[in-house]
């Protein structure tokens, strides 16, 4: 006998409230990107249009150069992080290493301490050696911060590759480099891809380090967002926020495809 479920009402109310809490602010941001005229106490903008988009995307606009800077910094950060993390991850997963647990933990340090005082002192040091306000300086800060993802995920990705396959390649005469390049690396590629995306997004979104080491010469998107917002220019700030949001949301939707459960279960081990 079917009985009527009276709990649908509180359930619907709570889920609706949660949806409002999560999507309300996001909708608000979307409205600001197309609001030409919007003032209190009108619930919705009075005029819609894309004139601010034109301003942001005009070839000489600040946003285009910030976007280019951000992508350049993030790409260099990914290349440098992987160059450091692939050998380290391979050693941590395959080779005998003294103090292995402690070494893994060492990469967590930049996430486990409040990093603002560190950035302040890096900025002071970089200023003395002329690295402050340069792309290289910002990349170094981002690499240090993102290395934990790169190394931990790379280690997990190599651990998830069956060692038999590597040994089979070695037993039919492949050298260690050849076995690594032709067998282990391709099999670990999806996991390494995930760590590359992680590092890219971390770098794209990083604010505090760029604020101290980069500004005002290296103007990344988060810095542009901050200046636009403190100047009260909510349209430009919201469009910049949207540019930063799209890769993040996109990543959330595809992350499970790259980071399979067998790799995920080995992270941090």
């Amino acid at each position, binding site marked *: 006998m079917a009985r009527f*479920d009276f709990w649908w009402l509180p359930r619907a109310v709570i*889920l609706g409230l*949660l*949806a409002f809490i*999560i999507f*309300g*602010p996001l*909708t*608000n*941001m979307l*409205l600001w990107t197309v609001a030409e005229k919007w003032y*209190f*106490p009108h*619930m919705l903008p009075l005029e819609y249009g894309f004139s601010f988009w034109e301003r942001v995307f005009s070839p000489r606009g600040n946003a285009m150069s910030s976007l280019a800077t951000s992508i350049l910094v993030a790409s260099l950060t990914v290349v440098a992080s992987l160059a*450091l993390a692939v*050998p*380290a991850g*391979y*050693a*941590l997963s395959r*080779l*005998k*290493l003294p103090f292995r647990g402690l*070494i893994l933990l*060492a*990469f967590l*340090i*930049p*996430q*486990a*301490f*409040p*990093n*603002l*005082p*560190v950035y*302040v*002192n890096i*900025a*002071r*040091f970089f200023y003395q050696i002329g690295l402050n306000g340069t792309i290289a300086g910002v990349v*170094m*800060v981002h*690499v*240090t911060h993102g*290395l934990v993802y790169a190394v931990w995920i790379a280690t997990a990705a190599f651990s998830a590759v069956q060692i038999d396959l590597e040994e089979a390649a070695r037993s039919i005469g492949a050298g260690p480099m050849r076995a690594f390049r032709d067998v282990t690396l391709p099999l670990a590629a999806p996991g390494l891809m995930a760590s590359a995306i992680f590092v890219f997004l971390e770098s794209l979104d990083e*604010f*505090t380090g760029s604020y*101290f080491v980069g500004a005002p010469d290296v103007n990344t998107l988060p810095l542009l967002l*901050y200046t636009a*917002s*403190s100047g009260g220019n*909510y349209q430009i*700030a*919201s469009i910049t926020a949207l540019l*930063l949001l799209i890769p*993040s*949301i996109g*990543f*959330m939707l595809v992350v499970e495809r790259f980071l399979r459960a067998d790799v995920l279960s080995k992270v941090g081990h």
Partner: protein
Amino acid sequence: MRKNLLAILLVLPALVMIVLFFIVPLIASILGAFEVGDAWGLGNFRKSFELYSGDMIFTVVIVTVSTALIGIFSIAIGGYLTLGENPRAVAILRWLYRWPMFIPFIVVGQILRTFLAKNGLMNNIFVSLGVLTPLQTVGFLDWRGIVIAFVWKQTPFVTLLVAGAMASLDRSTIEAARNLGASRLRILIEIVLPQISGTLLVGLILSFVTMMSVLSVPLMINAQSPTMLTADIAFRINAHGDYGVANALGMISLILTTGVALIYLRQTMKERS
């Protein structure tokens, strides 16, 4: 032996990076806190307490309240995902709760700044619905705004960890308690929660540290006094070039963070023994 050396050589460049660009500046910051002019002393700390003791309390209260709320919400969401009996509601919740997780803090600051302001969308909706009159609206861009921003952004992360731990629990004890007539709330508190408290703790400590070092949210939502220590540090550097007090404030926030981590660690040790 040769293999050992090779392994060390492969890990070394990455480790050097951490030492050079994190551990050395961290030590420099601790030493810098005691540097007054050309001598060593506690002058920076004296000045910090004189100028910013209100902000220290403000920071601790904000981060503690946020951590508590994040804990409560993540247990509630994770608990419903594990014990909920309506498959459609569970599926909707699973899809819904994750959205803010990957949104950067600076973007969270911007979107909540426009949403929660006195003349923001939230109040505009209430006014249009007739719940409030324009004169009754209040802005939330003070300590409440910072707490809302932190909880909004960090709850999905802790929930993800908590829900994962809950999903891998042995279902048989839950089913047994259910058959004996225990309510779901009681199962959550007495059976599920004790088994996942370790994961919850790790998630909350990581969130606590993250919130202690976020600069963009206090700058975007509430940069006037009282504000958080991170905003004060930035102000000391940018307005005064005063590295001594900035480093002292940094060390104080470091001590607060380690203190909290230690209290929790001791708590778990006690529970286990």
